[in-house]
């Protein structure tokens, strides 16, 4: 039996709302199939299932908001009978699974927020989510007065505001818990820009390689040498990431930020990375990311791009242990073979978790990024 639970789609997610089931009881599901669409504070996410099985029971309904870890569906594995699953399904159904508590559930069994019928009706009329309110009624129930008080506030927080709050929570946690150290290095990009110019000379505008995939690949290859920057700090210990999945910080048009992952970066050639990166940015902005993309990143890369400034001191996205930043590419005087010459430079920076690595090791990692970018032809090929 497989219990399909609401996955955490990022360290800042503690609950999600089911928008849609993509499967029905009786459907056969294969590993990687999208089974549900979940609304998080950030976006509507397609959630995949990572097991093969047959959908035996769907335990929540569209519109239900449940905490991370809630069993949403039960799948029957090959060789099992419906009878074997019945007791467990009945037990799951007996527990109220529609809690949406604003506070963290204390004892594991979440309780439905008490909203008086009149308050619920009025909230629906006003477009207010009563679960976001603090109740003042009997036993903390949300009353008509609570809803109307909320309605008199200037506006209910929109998605952008909610996202701001979740970013605030994640970044506060990062700065509170993670002892960051920072390193920076100027990286000459003469070879890289020359490589891109040559590579793109025969291509149409839409097929041109961008600098970003090259930078991502340099980070990914450096991580192969220094895997202690690739992974998570959990329960007081570093856990090495399985695979190198590079989270790409993407600014959204309505404000806010997501950092979905490009999976298995070292195994991809630049054209593939280029295509996948464009696709990722487009889908992030359209709000159609997959769950795995939001939760899988083992490191994050943030690029300020051409509108940005020279360097960035990035903050780690917990529970990751490192983040690499790239500033704006600038033509700068640079001494080569005793001669000052104009060279395109980018400042690469590293924010790393001092609990899991030290500055010396971080320096070696960042230097590796620099060296890899001097040999762009090697980065162009998928890692053997």
């Amino acid at each position, binding site marked *: 039996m497989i219990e399909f639970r609401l996955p955490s789609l990022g360290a800042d997610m503690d609950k999600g709302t089911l928008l849609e089931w993509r499967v029905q009881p009786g459907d056969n599901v294969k590993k990687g199939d999208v089974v549900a669409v979940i609304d998080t504070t950030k976006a509507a996410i397609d959630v995949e299932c990572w097991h093969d099985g047959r959908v035996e029971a769907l335990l929540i309904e569209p519109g239900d908001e449940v905490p991370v870890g809630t069993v949403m569906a039960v799948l029957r594995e090959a060789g099992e009978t419906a009878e074997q699953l019945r007791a467990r399904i009945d037990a799951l159904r007996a527990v109220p699974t529609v809690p949406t508590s604003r506070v963290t559930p204390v004892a594991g069994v979440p309780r439905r927020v008490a909203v008086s*019928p*009149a308050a619920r009706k009025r909230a629906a009329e006003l477009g207010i989510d009563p679960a976001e309110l603090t109740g003042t009624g009997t036993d903390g*129930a949300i009353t008509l007065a609570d809803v109307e008080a909320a309605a008199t506030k200037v506006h209910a927080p929109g998605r952008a505001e909610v996202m701001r709050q979740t970013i605030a929570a994640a970044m506060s946690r990062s700065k509170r818990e993670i002892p960051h150290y920072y390193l920076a290095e100027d990286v000459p990009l003469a070879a890289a820009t020359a490589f891109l110019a040559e590579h793109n000379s025969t291509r149409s505008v839409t097929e041109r390689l961008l600098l970003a995939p090259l930078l991502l690949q340099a980070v990914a290859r450096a991580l192969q040498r220094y895997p202690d920057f690739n992974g998570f700090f959990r329960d007081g210990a570093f856990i090495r990431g399985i695979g190198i999945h590079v989270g790409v910080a993407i600014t959204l048009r309505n404000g806010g930020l997501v950092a979905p992952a490009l999976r298995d970066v070292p195994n991809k050639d630049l054209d593939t990375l280029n295509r996948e990166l464009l696709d990722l940015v487009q889908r992030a902005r359209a709000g159609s990311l997959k769950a795995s993309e939001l939760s899988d990143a083992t490191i994050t890369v943030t690029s300020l791009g051409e509108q940005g400034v020279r360097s960035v001191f990035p903050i780690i996205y917990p529970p990751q242990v490192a983040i690499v930043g790239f500033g704006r590419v600038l033509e700068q005087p640079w001494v080569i073979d005793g001669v000052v010459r104009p060279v395109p430079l980018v400042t690469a920076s590293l924010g790393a978790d001092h609990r899991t690595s030290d500055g010396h090791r971080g320096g070696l990692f960042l230097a590796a990024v620099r060296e890899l970018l001097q040999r762009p032809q090697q980065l162009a090929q998928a890692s053997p």
Partner: protein
Amino acid sequence: MTARTTTYREALRAAHREALERDARVFIMGEDVGKYGGSYAVTKGFFDEFGPERIRDTPLSELAFVGIGVGAALGGQRPIVEIMTVNFSLLALDQIVNTAATVRHMSGGQFSVPIVIRMATGAGRQLAAQHSHSLEVWYAHVPGIRVLAPATLEDARGMLWPALEDPDPVVMFEHAQLYNLEGELADPAPVVDIERAAVRRRGRDLSVVTYGGSLPRVNEAVNALAQQGIDAEVIDLRVLRPLDWDTIVASVRKTHRVLVVDEGWRTCSLAAEIITGLIERAFYDLDAPPARVCSEEVPMPYPKHLEDAALPMPPKIVAAACRVCGTAA
């Protein structure tokens, strides 16, 4: 129009006198209603004034004299039958429930039973467990009869005549503690209906629904609540069957909270019916769980302190109202 000070008992007496004078078919029958003047002195002096034909003492047999009343009503008279207390009326349940309430239905509308059956109800006078119960809901349960609970001087004065005009059986409950209720009554007395509940006090925070002998206790409690800033509306049901849902629902739609105060026992009480009916009709208007204050589920105790403890007295009403309103008592 002038007003004069009177009592609930005097108002009832005046109503009976008026009925006897207006309609020759009206006669009064019951235990000790004649020479003794009635256990609660409602008919005091009538025996001499109207004579034994119209003010008839009966043997101690509720089944028999209520049955005679039903027969007289079928025969075209307008009997007023007085039963000492609701506890004793159980002996006459067969005549009321099986006969009076059913004849119109079973005769296909050919016969009706225009009888008025009055009885005292309720506790508070240390009459113990066989004379003190509030069994109004037993009658309110039965289709075919109208059940009244006058709780004010106006209703004591005014309900009898429309009850007599009703072509079907009417059961009227007079709470034993109300007989000595004093107050002003307009002269001539206002005409009242036997259809609608009455809003006795306007308020915006909470609807307190009650009837009969609980009304004065509710009034006392509501005054205390006002001191605490809770503005309660008081609904006097007046008619226990059929219930006036329009008035009850309109009040709750306004206040969004309801407390029912009912001297009957809690289980299967009128309070239970009112709360259920409100949930059916006004669920989405409720802003707090409905609540009720009823009598404790024991035979009514004799000692004063235990009797008081068993009844829905003002402090219990205040506490329950505060809970419904989400404030500390």
